[in-house]
């Protein structure tokens, strides 16, 4: 049996991928919810039925051509730390991490596909892509779904479409989402009106880890809420339009901030660098919020020579489970804060303090 840690790619590999507009769009994802026609939904099924569903679905998923190089594991064979690492990679939901016997996961090596089995539905299959690529993600998961429907009998109704445990996912069972880094809109205090107008369009704005989480590190997840009565393509196209507008607003906010309030911007970024490069104890929350400002600094070319990938790698490496995994001993939260600060100081030692005028800012 393969070990999940030798299977997963390194944090460096995971965070140095590139996609269109990845300055602002960190990643794109499309997930489809599917259920077997002849079984109770996971939340209502008894343990033996859930195990049977897992045993039916897992081999079918693993045999797909897209999953040729994949890893499959039952949740009860994963430690709490393993599960948390998958959550920090955004491969499984926090709800799924809480599951045990009868649930499991199938994922491929380059983190482009991840299938959760017996989460809220029998199948939650996701395609993930770096940057702004929701259309590509939809096409990829559409193909995977078409391959799978040849082997499994999905619950489908002529009127209601794909039947899901929760009526909110009924119909297409699709959730299209992107993870957006929006420090400009937050600093310019324009984020709330943007969130409100996005909500008015029937889209949800959530925090870093989805439903009910806060927007740590100025990272926001935008996704559709309605799944019935509109085709997948229409939903994907609407999301594309809205995201393109948010990207434009973020770019404008950054530009305006630099023109009207350069001192505010330099102050935030300079202080973030100061703390990260010199702290000896730091929480994961503070790290994320400060790394977000440094990421903005890299985008604004205030750190010549520094790469965004380094910031993104630290963003992942400093989260509790990833940090714990890099150590041999089990640490307390306080001890982790010390180790985290050491790691960040070390990785930033070759990054010089920020310049105060981005090169070519006048021309822009």
């Amino acid at each position, binding site marked *: 049996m393969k070990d999940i840690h030798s299977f997963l790619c390194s944090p460096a590999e995971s965070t140095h991928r590139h996609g269109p507009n990845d300055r602002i769009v960190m990643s794109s994802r499309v997930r489809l919810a599917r259920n077997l026609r002849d079984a109770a*939904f996971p939340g209502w099924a008894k343990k033996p039925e859930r195990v049977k569903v897992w045993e039916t679905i897992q081999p079918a998923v693993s045999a797909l051509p897209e999953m040729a190089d994949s890893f499959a594991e039952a949740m009860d064979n994963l430690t709490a730390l393993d599960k948390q690492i998958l959550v920090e990679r955004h491969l499984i939901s926090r709800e799924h991490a809480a599951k045990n016997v009868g649930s499991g996961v199938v994922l491929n090596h380059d983190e482009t596909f991840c299938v959760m089995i017996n989460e809220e539905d029998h199948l939650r299959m996701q395609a993930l892509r770096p940057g702004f690529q929701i259309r590509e993600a939809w096409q990829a998961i559409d193909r995977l779904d078409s391959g799978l429907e040849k082997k499994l009998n999905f619950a*489908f109704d002529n009127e209601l*479409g794909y039947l899901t445990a929760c009526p909110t996912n009924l*119909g297409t069972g*699709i959730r299209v989402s992107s993870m957006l880094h929006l420090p400009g809109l937050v600093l310019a205090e324009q984020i709330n009106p943007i969130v409100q107008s996005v909500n008015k369009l029937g889209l949800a704005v959530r925090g870093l880890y989805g439903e009910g989480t806060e927007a740590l590190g100025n990272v926001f997840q935008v996704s559709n809420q309605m799944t019935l*009565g*509109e085709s997948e393509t229409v939903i994907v196209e609407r999301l594309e339009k809205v995201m393109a507008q948010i990207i434009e607003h973020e770019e404008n906010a950054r530009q305006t901030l630099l023109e009207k309030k350069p001192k505010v911007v330099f102050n935030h970024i300079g202080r973030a660098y100061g703390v990260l490069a010199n702290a000896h104890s730091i929480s994961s929350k503070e790290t994320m919020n400060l790394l977000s400002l440094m990421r903005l600094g890299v985008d604004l070319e205030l750190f010549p020579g520094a790469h965004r990938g380094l910031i993104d790698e630290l963003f992942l490496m400093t989260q509790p489970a990833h940090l714990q995994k890099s150590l041999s001993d089990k640490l307390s939260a306080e001890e982790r804060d010390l180790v985290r600060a050491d790691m960040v100081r070390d990785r930033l030692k070759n990054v010089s303090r920020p310049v105060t005028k981005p090169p070519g800012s006048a021309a822009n």
Partner: protein
Amino acid sequence: MSAKKICSVCKEKPATVFLTNISADNKVQAMDLCDDCAKAKGVNDPATFGTADLLFGLGAAQGLDAAAGGAELKCSRCGFSQADFKKSGRLGCPECYRTFAEGLSGLLKTMHKGVRHVGKAPEALRQTRENVDRLKTLQKKLAKAVEEENYEAAATLRDEIKNLSGAAPAKSR
């Protein structure tokens, strides 16, 4: 912008009740209802109203109660009851959608863009799905033809329906 708002439930009558619900995690949800739908949803006193209730509790449970005619409705396949739905906001199995269809229809209207699926269908069912759609149209036309005493057209339509309903089950798996 100045156009009159239409009830977001029945999508017909003008809205007179405007509700904005802010949940604990600061999610804002606005809903416009007409008098009748507001009453039907039990929104007589906005002070006691919560969107979550409307979505998963109150409204749904009332709808399901009504559908059951007072007696508790249970899914014959999985034993899931309306009380279970009120508790979790989730259904028990695919068959539950048929069991609780009546109570769910109002709920789905408030939740989604439409109440009929548009988009992908499993390949094996796609043909059946198209046939079902055509059958419905033909049956409507037939009823109209009979009503208008246009028996010639009715005979042609009846034959078409016969052919189609003969073909549909053969093609589905």
